């Protein structure tokens, strides 16, 4: 019973971070960068395991270093920015696999990071998740206005003399910390879906960032809670079940939204 309580608590904590950070990933259109960060973090985890450090601490230090690296790459304004981030993506994953391969007896650990295992979350993991959650919430709460401007119109932010590179670094760090939290819930392979699907659905129904954040949080909560419960009954991996529910809800929402718009258009045409 206790592992279920831990699992639901972890899902609740993950939903808070993913609701906030995911909304910024979605509105800033940086899903590819977030994917690059997630896969690069696997390299840091592999390295920590190989060196005998805590993988969570390694993941956090790695996430901050890779956020710095991505901002540095962006500042170079290279034409092949996408290729460099793609290389970081594959390189990080390859390094993670290689380091884990060189560490005897740790292959199962890598699988946990790749696919997540929310039912294995311990009490000490929950304390880490709560602390990381507080860090993510604090960063977005304190820098909210500036994060919004650099996401909407970074040229205007530069003219206003905002520290755009520093703000990007802080935002990417908060996003990568969220990725570390979510990796424990759904695993690296599925992390992007939990980061982007809830805000994608929420933005169909609101044009205010704070409301999108709240809806995304509730949707993440519904997806993770129902996914954990369903995975128990059908005896399937919880991460995959969570994402299947999220993706199904996304397509249903798009369909319903399209039908509602069509109905409103048809009603307006009838009136005129």
């Amino acid at each position, binding site marked *: 019973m206790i592992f279920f309580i831990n699992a639901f608590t972890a899902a609740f904590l993950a939903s808070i971070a993913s609701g906030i950070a995911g909304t910024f990933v979605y509105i800033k259109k940086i899903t590819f960068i977030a994917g690059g960060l997630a896969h690069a973090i696997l390299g840091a985890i592999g390295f920590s395991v190989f060196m005998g450090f805590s993988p969570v601490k390694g993941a956090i230090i790695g996430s901050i270093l890779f956020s710095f690296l991505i901002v540095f790459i962006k500042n170079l304004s290279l034409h092949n920015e996408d290729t460099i981030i793609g290389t970081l993506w594959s390189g990080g994953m390859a390094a993670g696999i290689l380091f884990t391969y060189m560490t005897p007896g740790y292959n199962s650990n890598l699988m946990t990071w790749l696919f997540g295992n929310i039912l294995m979350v311990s009490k000490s993991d929950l304390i880490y998740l709560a602390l990381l959650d507080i860090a993510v919430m604090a960063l977005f709460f304190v820098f*909210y206005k500036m994060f919004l401007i650099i996401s909407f119109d970074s040229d205007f932010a530069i003219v206003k003399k905002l520290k755009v590179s520093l703000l990007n670094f802080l935002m990417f760090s908060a996003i990568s910390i969220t990725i570390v939290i979510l990796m424990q819930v759904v695993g690296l392979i599925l992390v992007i879906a939990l980061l982007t699907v809830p805000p994608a659905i929420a933005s169909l129904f609101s044009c205010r960032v704070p409301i999108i954040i709240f809806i995304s949080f509730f949707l993440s909560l519904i997806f993770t809670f129902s996914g954990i419960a369903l995975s128990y009954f059908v005896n399937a991996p919880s991460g995959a079940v969570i994402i299947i529910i999220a993706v199904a809800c996304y397509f249903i929402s798009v369909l319903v939204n399209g039908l509602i718009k069509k109905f409103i258009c048809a009603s307006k045409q009838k009136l005129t």
Partner: protein
Amino acid sequence: MKNNVITIENISFSYDSEPVLKNINMEIYEKDFAAVIGPNGGGKTTLLKIIAGLLKPSKGSLTIPEKFKIGYVQQHPNLNREFPVTVEDVVLSGTVKNFSLFPFFNSEVKKKANELMAKLELISFSKMQFGKLSGGQKQKTLIARALIDNPDIILLDEPVANVDSIAEDEIYSMLRELNEEKTIVMVSHDISFVSSAVKKVFCVNKTLELPETEHDDGSLFSKYNKTKNTVIHKCGL
């Protein structure tokens, strides 16, 4: 004696090895209304971005005294239409500075935003998503965002591109009114507005094609003994 607001000395700029601007010299004084005109690809927007501090010239120098605050109005199609912000959010964002912490705006700033939106006839759209506005309304919102921080210099990149003729007239009359107190530099294709309302014209086609032309006795181009047609021809418009 008017103060120098923007001084550009011998500026050149290249994208990779492709030269876009060569040896540009300009002087703009307080309360000038200057237009930068020229053909597509001639480097007008690049020059405006250099003045705004968005691009660094590969050669030469730009001087804008610290005391002058800049308001920048870019072309609205460059912004993400789907972005979830309202008109009010966009206007309020003009007040954000470094260390504008936490998600709240004080009542004084909100009052100022409301006054500006009322003046620009945006108040009834204040809670509407920015991306859902017409071209003219979007442009006015971006002007309001630049104005809320009370800038001394306003830089505008083709402010009437992608707007209808009614909004065009409204924007031009607003710019004339603003010019009573502020320095305006505008990239434009509209030669008729340029010849009737603007005080200075810089014709940029990679280099400065004509020496700066100024208003004299009501006729913009007469000082250098050039007709409007010569300017149009020379600037490749």
